[in-house]
């Protein structure tokens, strides 16, 4: 279908930029270039899932391996990514069909009250998570002796550079180039020379089961869930799908994009766990490794300097990519909330508020990281938890939107997918609540 535009209707530069990208998609489809078509259409799915392999997530996976070794958490991480792919497919489909972002649809379909609550949830979790991304960049670069202001400034320059082009395609391809380095965690895992039989045993039996402190187990369980399924991912992927110009005809390729993102992200996540499991094997005390000293230094005696350096580079990539994607999700959500511009396909002069939200979010987070004595360790540990706790509300709205026949028509959720979506929401809610209750009562001195 092509645009049949009445002569009195207006076209914008944003339309033209998106149309240029869409023309290449239509040509590739017309000429039967399957891989060319896939290359043009991948992006939002890969970015959202590799972007969620961010600083605190990779540290959570590493903490799982260092605390419990290769066992229960290895298959558990793989399963959480299956859940993430299922949820993100819904967000992608809703965006492709409605051409509206997640936040935008909540405002329009359910009203400003629920819309603002969702955006406020997002802003809270995004700010905390963005802080942890700059912590990851700072910790990763400190391994190479780079001072904190330079490391944090470098992260900010990257965010500013990526948004400077006035075109979604450019931003997306810069982010994808960076995302490829998430696979460094797989390289580190190989360098740690894991026992293939132990890995196979873990996947087959989900054992050995974690022992020890209930609060620590729940913390790591909830952190790992928060490392794969979080509210910003819904806002980001749906808005990115709209910004990229994905249509219902592209849903098959966008599903591949999302699944591929899930597979690669799960591989990197499991890689971080496997690499750090050498610390468990050698009985290294890991209780404070997420502070400045970091995992890389702890791993160095066992995997050598090159392995530790690659782990640090992976951490820098994880923080840098997520700084880009999470600040983008903040800008998309705020732009949609205030009915302002919300597209990378607009020039700076045409959408100053959108770019100000994007860079402003990164700037605030970076500033917090440089405050002397800021509780960076506590923020890192709690970032994923906050996301887990607030995720069920976001999931409920997504499921309602994906089931909205007036919006989605025949592309609304089938019944079985709803049950899976509800199960994910309940499990995420249970994990977050369990940790919150245990931690709360332990804080009060009523040890559970």
């Amino acid at each position, binding site marked *: 279908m092509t645009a049949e535009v009445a002569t009195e209707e207006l076209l914008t530069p944003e339309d033209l930029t998106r*149309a*240029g990208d869409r023309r290449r998609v239509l040509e590739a489809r017309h000429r039967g270039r399957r891989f060319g078509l896939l290359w043009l259409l991948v992006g939002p799915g890969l970015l959202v899932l590799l972007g969620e392999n961010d600083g605190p997530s990779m540290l959570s996976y590493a903490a799982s391996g260092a605390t419990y070794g290769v066992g229960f958490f290895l298959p558990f991480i793989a399963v959480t990514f299956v859940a993430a792919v299922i949820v993100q497919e819904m967000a992608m489909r809703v965006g492709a069909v409605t051409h509206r972002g997640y936040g935008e649809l909540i405002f329009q379909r359910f009203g400003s009250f629920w819309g603002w609550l969702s955006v406020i949830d997002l802003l809270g979790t995004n700010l905390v998570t963005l802080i942890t991304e700059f912590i990851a960049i700072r910790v990763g670069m400190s391994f190479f002796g780079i001072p904190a202001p330079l490391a944090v400034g470098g992260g900010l320059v990257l965010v500013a550079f990526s948004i400077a082009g006035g075109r979604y395609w450019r931003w997306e391809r810069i982010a994808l180039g960076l995302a490829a380095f998430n696979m460094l965690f797989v390289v580190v895992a190989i360098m740690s020379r894991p026992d293939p039989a132990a890995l196979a045993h873990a996947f087959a039996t989900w054992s050995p089961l974690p022992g020890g402190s209930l609060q620590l187990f729940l913390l790591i369980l909830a952190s790992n869930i928060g490392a794969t399924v979080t509210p910003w991912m819904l806002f980001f992927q749906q808005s990115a799908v709209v910004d990229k110009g994905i249509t219902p005809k592209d849903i098959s390729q966008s599903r591949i994009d999302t699944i591929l993102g899930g597979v690669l992200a799960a591989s990197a996540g499991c890689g971080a766990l496997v690499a750090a499991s050498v610390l468990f094997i050698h009985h290294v005390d890991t209780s404070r490794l997420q502070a400045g000293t970091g995992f890389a230094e702890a791993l160095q005696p066992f995997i050598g300097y090159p392995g530790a350096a690659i782990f640090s580079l992976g951490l820098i990539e994880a923080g840098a990519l997520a700084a880009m994607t999470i600040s983008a999700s903040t800008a998309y959500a705020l732009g949609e909330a205030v009915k302002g511009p919300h597209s990378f396909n607009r020039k700076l002069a*045409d959408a100053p508020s959108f770019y100000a939200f994007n860079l402003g979010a990164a700037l605030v987070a970076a500033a917090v990281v440089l405050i002397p004595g800021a509780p960076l360790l506590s923020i890192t540990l709690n970032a994923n938890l906050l996301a887990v706790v607030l995720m069920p509300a976001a999931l409920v709205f997504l499921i309602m939107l994906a089931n909205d026949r007036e919006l989605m028509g025949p592309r609304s959720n089938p019944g079985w997918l709803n049950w899976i979506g509800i199960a994910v929401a309940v499990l995420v809610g249970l994990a977050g609540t369990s940790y919150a209750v245990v931690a*709360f009562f332990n*804080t009060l001195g009523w040890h559970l």
Partner: protein
Amino acid sequence: MQDHQQHIYLGEPEEDLIESLEPDQLVVEMDRPVLRRRLSGYATAGLWVLRVFLLTVTGMVIYSFAIGVINTSH
């Protein structure tokens, strides 16, 4: 906060290019809000219960976080 961006009028050379977009992908179409959905009483009550529950749990997490920070600083 509706933005006022530069517009291009049909008849310009870019007119052919724009046909690569589906009609509902044009900015002017995407800016039109979809109709508000009427939630049933049960759905609204359910959303409120979920919201109160999540705020309670969030309060617990924030409290534990704050106490942890205070204890660490001492």
